[in-house]
């Protein structure tokens, strides 16, 4: 079986998983929409105009999805909000994956007291409910996009570390690692050249799923007011005021929530599909 047919088999497995394909398509569309928000959005998302407030969706051509309590265009805010949510999701995911992979790699490869120490630390961090940790820190720092992404990332890496460590422990048993040592390769070379290419698959799966959780977390802390600050729009903080107007203007609360749900769903389906395609061992 050549390299090409192997790739074809993986793609074939992935394609059979219809929700995963839908998820992939949706993710691509969402990313494109976020990327081209400035082009697609009919209005400036923070532009106020109280003369056009509370328009219902599909009633005015200029404001296809209506306007909110300050006259801001909902569609534009959704697009820019998506940009923000995706940025935070991706940066948080990068932080999580880098930290988790590093800890898992070092812990799994070196073993011994380093492993014990790091894994005890991971166990202890996992005792704290994530939202508690997140909010305590979020409430006391100045919330910028970077700081929010970082704290979400730094409270989510523990599971990734465990997954990667388990994978490394399994890989260490393989002869090719011993072969590298027999050739005289040092620890760094083995970790980087031999082990890392083999953990790309589980990392990819974990990364995709972590984007989903990061977006959920960002939307919650923004909703509470400790995340993305107005006037910058995020799907979460669009909900903060929207709940007060649900009786008369329900769309203000429905649209952002639906967008969050669809985005998170897409990443979840994509991640699940990737997991099934790349590693039959982990098939759920």
């Amino acid at each position, binding site marked *: 079986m050549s390299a090409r047919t192997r790739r074809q088999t993986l793609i074939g497995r992935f394609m059979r998983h219809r*929700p995963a394909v839908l998820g992939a398509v949706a993710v691509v569309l969402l990313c494109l929409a976020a990327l081209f928000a400035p082009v697609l959005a009919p209005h400036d998302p923070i532009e106020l105009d109280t003369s056009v407030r509370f328009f219902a969706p599909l009633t005015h051509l200029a404001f296809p999805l209506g306007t909110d309590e300050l006259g801001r265009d909902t569609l534009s805010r959704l697009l820019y909000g998506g940009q923000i949510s995706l940025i935070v999701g991706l940066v948080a995911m990068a932080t999580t994956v880098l930290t988790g992979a590093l800890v898992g790699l070092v812990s799994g490869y070196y073993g011994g007291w380093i492993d014990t120490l790091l894994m*005890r*630390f991971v*166990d*202890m*961090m*996992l*005792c*704290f*409910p*994530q*939202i*508690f*940790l997140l*909010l*305590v*820190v979020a*409430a*006391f*720092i100045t919330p910028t996009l970077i700081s929010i992404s970082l704290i979400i990332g730094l409270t989510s890496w523990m599971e990734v570390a465990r997954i990667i460590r388990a994978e490394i422990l399994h890989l260490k048993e393989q002869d090719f690692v011993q072969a590298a040592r027999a050739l005289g390769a040092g620890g760094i070379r083995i970790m980087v050249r031999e082990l890392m290419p083999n953990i790309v698959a589980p990392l990819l799966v974990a990364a995709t799923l972590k984007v*989903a959780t990061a977006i*959920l977390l960002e*939307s*919650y802390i923004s*909703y*509470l007011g*400790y995340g993305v600050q107005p006037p910058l729009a995020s799907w979460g903080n669009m*909900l903060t005021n929207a*709940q007060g107007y*649900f*009786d008369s203007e*329900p769309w203000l*609360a*429905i649209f*952002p*929530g639906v967008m*969050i*749900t669809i985005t*998170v*769903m897409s990443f*979840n*389906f994509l991640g*699940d599909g990737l997991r099934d395609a790349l590693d039959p061992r982990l098939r*759920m």
Partner: protein
Amino acid sequence: MLAYIGRRIVGAIPMLIGVSIIGFALMHLAPGGPLAVYTLNPTITAQDIERIKTIFGLDQPVHIQYLKWAAGMFSGNWGYTFFGGRPVLIVILERLPATLLLMGSALSIAILLGLSIGMIGASRRYSIWDYLATTGALVALSFPTFWFGLMAIFILAVDLGWLPSGGMYELGEEGNIVDLLRHLILPTLVLALVITATYSRYARSAFLEVLHQDYMRTARAKGLRPRERLFRHAFPNAVKPLIALLGTDLPILFSGALVTESVFGWPGMGRLFVDALTMKEYPILMGLVMFTAFFVILGNLLADVAIALLDPRVRLS
């Protein structure tokens, strides 16, 4: 058996200490520090802050502070609230029953439903039910809990008026069980949504694991009917890793409870946390962070003991 419990308890002590160190570090690393509520207040002078520091012992070296704080913690003195000066531990414990009620109800539903869905999915693998169950679980996991709660309130409580929109009791109805249950339903269902979805996925994979073992084939060869096979043979073996997962998922349950309580105004620890955030009540915030962490350690211990009771191999190893 007692030896095993003893060993686990001894093993939990370093965890408690480590967790307290992390919590302490958190308190001091967060910019603004423990005195954020005062330093952010422009009417308080620098001298006042120095005096407050001395009162709270914050001018002493870090490790001394930690030891004093830890000693206080482990002897029940968790400090006092900034506003009102009430003992933090008491304040937290007052809210504990409400949270336990919510978490317990949600967990019960999640376990029952999740196990059933998982079992059905596993035993009818690749069927339409399995497909619906796995996809449905993934969809349920994607809902932002707080938004789902808000929607539930708006639609079921406000628009349709079937259920109360928040709180734990109507005024004057404390003690009325029916009233309590009416208030409990929505938050429980909302919290249970995500937990059930997660649990059904675990259960499905646990049952899949078990159903393909050789002893299941033996049971079938013995002529046992599917239901018997499922319940008497598959179930006890599948359930053990699930109990362990209960322990590890406790933090997630707390997080979910926080979100649910804040949306529904349920007077538990989660709601307390969100309120304390607004008022920058550090003592309560730290108290809750530590309390939940300790609770999780306890929960894991109990889960381990439960598994040891069910599985003699664990005890004897």
